[in-house]
């Protein structure tokens, strides 16, 4: 919405508005862009140059070792050793030298004199070493060079992190946690909300007030008793204390007060007539709920579903307490945290791992932004 009629003249004030907003947007997006660009870079380049240099050709100093005497062939009375230093065809030689201090002594294709022999390093990284006498050295000679590395982007880091760091398992595990932890509370809350809104039973007001009261309880209050309880149940019945069922129920418990509260407000606002006329037709409350109320409540259900889905997907604390860290249970946030500890300097692993963990929420965000906002507004009072 424009509060001001857009003028033809660009005033300083308007320019300042554009510039400051652009600055803020840049500040807010650059960190994520850095992560994304880095995750696509070659892991060797990633640690030696900033990601902002990724789009330009960089130069890198290195050395190669020539073949030893046993690699020589005789060509027309002269002795020749041939080979190649660069394994990537897109890299090129900028200059080379015989000693480390002399990196820029020769251009590609120029002949360097080594003790009366002629050494040439070509632009494509192949070399040709020619001598009139037979070579006799047993170890290859080091040749120092500067190579130009064009911008390279690949999905290699993603392949690596998926295969070697169990991120693929974590991805599936996260879905295993998130889907039931979203659907079960919605189902349970919807039934309860309907009962609180439209059915008569003793203690109805009082119980609903209790549910609203539970909104204020922070998650932290529940963790220790529940951890103890799970451990005791596990020990008593000889079952594992860390299970998917356990975390589904925990997330259900933490999400229920908000879900019931929101859905009761929504369902309670539906017109009384439709419910009463269905009752006159002989429908039971169960039928009314399934056939009428659920379809009518889709917007409210969707908002809460998105909120709960993102909340569970992004949760770390509950997963740390109620799930194990084995391959079969670790979730994305948890394995990302492990990577930060164990592979803190392997940015190719961290950046691609992080991006895999945020891609689903980002997709939800960009495709369902409107519902997402509604879910957030609704969820802003969540106690968990």
């Amino acid at each position, binding site marked *: 919405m424009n*509060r001001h009629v857009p003028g033809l003249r660009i005033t300083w*004030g*308007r320019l300042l508005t554009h510039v*400051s*907003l652009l600055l*803020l947007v840049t500040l*807010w*997006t650059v*960190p*994520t862009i850095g*992560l994304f660009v*880095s995750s696509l870079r070659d892991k060797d380049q*990633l640690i*030696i140059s*900033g990601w*902002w240099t990724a789009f330009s050709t960089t130069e890198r100093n290195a050395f190669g070792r020539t073949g030893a005497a046993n690699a020589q062939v005789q060509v027309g009375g002269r002795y020749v050793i041939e080979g190649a230093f660069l394994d990537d065809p897109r890299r090129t030689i900028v200059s080379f030298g015989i000693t480390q201090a002399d990196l820029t002594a020769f251009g590609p294709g120029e002949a360097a004199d080594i003790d009366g022999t002629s050494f040439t390093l070509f632009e494509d990284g192949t070399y040709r070493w020619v001598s009139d006498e037979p070579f006799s050295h047993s170890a290859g000679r080091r040749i120092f060079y500067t190579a130009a590395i064009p911008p390279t982007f690949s999905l290699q880091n993603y392949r690596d992190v998926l295969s070697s760091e169990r991120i*693929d398992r974590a991805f599936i595990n996260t*879905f295993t946690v998130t889907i*039931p932890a979203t659907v079960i509370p919605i189902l*349970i809350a919807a*039934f*309860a909300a*309907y*009962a609180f809104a439209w059915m*008569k*039973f003793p203690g109805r007001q009082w*119980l609903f007030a209790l*549910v609203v009261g*539970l909104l*204020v*309880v*922070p*998650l*932290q*209050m*529940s*963790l*220790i*008793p*529940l951890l*103890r309880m799970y451990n005791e149940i596990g020990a008593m019945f000889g079952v594992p204390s860390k299970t998917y*069922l356990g975390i589904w129920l925990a997330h*259900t418990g933490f999400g229920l007060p908000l879900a019931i509260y929101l859905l009761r407000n929504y369902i309670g606002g539906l017109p009384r007539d439709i419910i009463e006329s269905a009752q006159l037709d002989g429908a*039971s409350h*169960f039928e009314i709920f399934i056939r009428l109320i659920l379809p009518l409540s889709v917007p409210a259900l969707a908002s809460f579903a998105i909120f709960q889905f*993102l909340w569970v997907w*992004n949760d*770390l604390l509950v997963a740390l*307490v109620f799930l194990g860290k084995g391959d079969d249970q670790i979730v994305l*946030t948890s394995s990302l*945290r492990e990577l*930060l500890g164990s592979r803190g300097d392997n*940015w190719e692993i*961290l*950046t691609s791992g992080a991006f895999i963990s945020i891609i689903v*929420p980002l997709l939800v965000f960009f495709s369902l932004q409107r519902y*997402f906002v509604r879910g*957030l507004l609704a969820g*802003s*009072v969540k106690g968990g």
Partner: protein
Amino acid sequence: MTQQVLMALLAVVAGVGASLAYFFGTNLLLDRLAADGRKPDGSYLSRESTRNAIRPWLFVLPALVILGVYLVYPVFETFRLSFFDRTGTEFVGLGNYAWAIDNPEFRMAIRNNLLWLLFVPAMSTAVGLLVATLADRVSWGNVAKSLIFMPMAISFVGASVIWKFVYDYRGPDAQQIGIVNAIVVALGGEPQAWITVPFWNNFLLMIILVWIQTGFAMVILSAALRGVPEETIEAAQIDGAGEVQVFFRIIVPQITSTILVVWTTITIVVLKVFDIVLAMTNGQWGTNVLANSMYNWMFRGGGDFGRGSVIALVIMLAVVPIMVWNIRRFQAEEAMR
């Protein structure tokens, strides 16, 4: 891999199916057991009132049981455990509370939480308001809002990785790959491992939460700005008020209550902040906060449930009044609609 996916699918279907089965099953059972019938004398017997008396409880029972187990019982149990020793077996009176008051680490966590409390809600709300205001005045405002809102979808751990990369430090001779140190070097400064610099590192962690929460503040404040009547602004402009004056004298007073809601909501997030600190520093270099300290005590050396419970209670005490205020407001607003 396929097996893993199948297991996951099976678990999902079983979990969701079981809760569906409960609702359908019990309601079907009720309809059968309390079906209408005939009295011995052959007249029609309606059991509708029986069914109507029982059915609500079928509807609310799962919710009540789960809430009881996962929220009501733990509140009392945490309170009880705070008077017991590390395993929860021996009564120690106020011992854990005395420990907390004396403990320098606990006091530092409190101090840090207070810092967070001052900085994060204020910054998020201020920048959110600024963006909401600016974005309403340019044609690409919606794109700008979308981009600033985006971090809201990213997990705290994911955000921590993103920012750890921003703060990354290489030795003074190496090329800096973290953008902060690269800028510092470009301006002629010395690169630093910023995360380990005591006191100021707290603010580096806070920036991450500001980065996430600003979008939330912006969205809500943007909606509020739209509700400000155009006439009030025009009247002020006719009276010769400049843009800045209009903003502070006319617009801000009309959205004060929304600003408060945003502020308090972010305050609650701040009081429970955990993931960022755990992932960035695990409370080292003087950055510990209450929630992280509590998590540590739950597991450190086999766990000390007494001390953990005391910290949980402190968090609860801080959160409750703000939540109560927020819910009251929310209900008042719902009532007005």
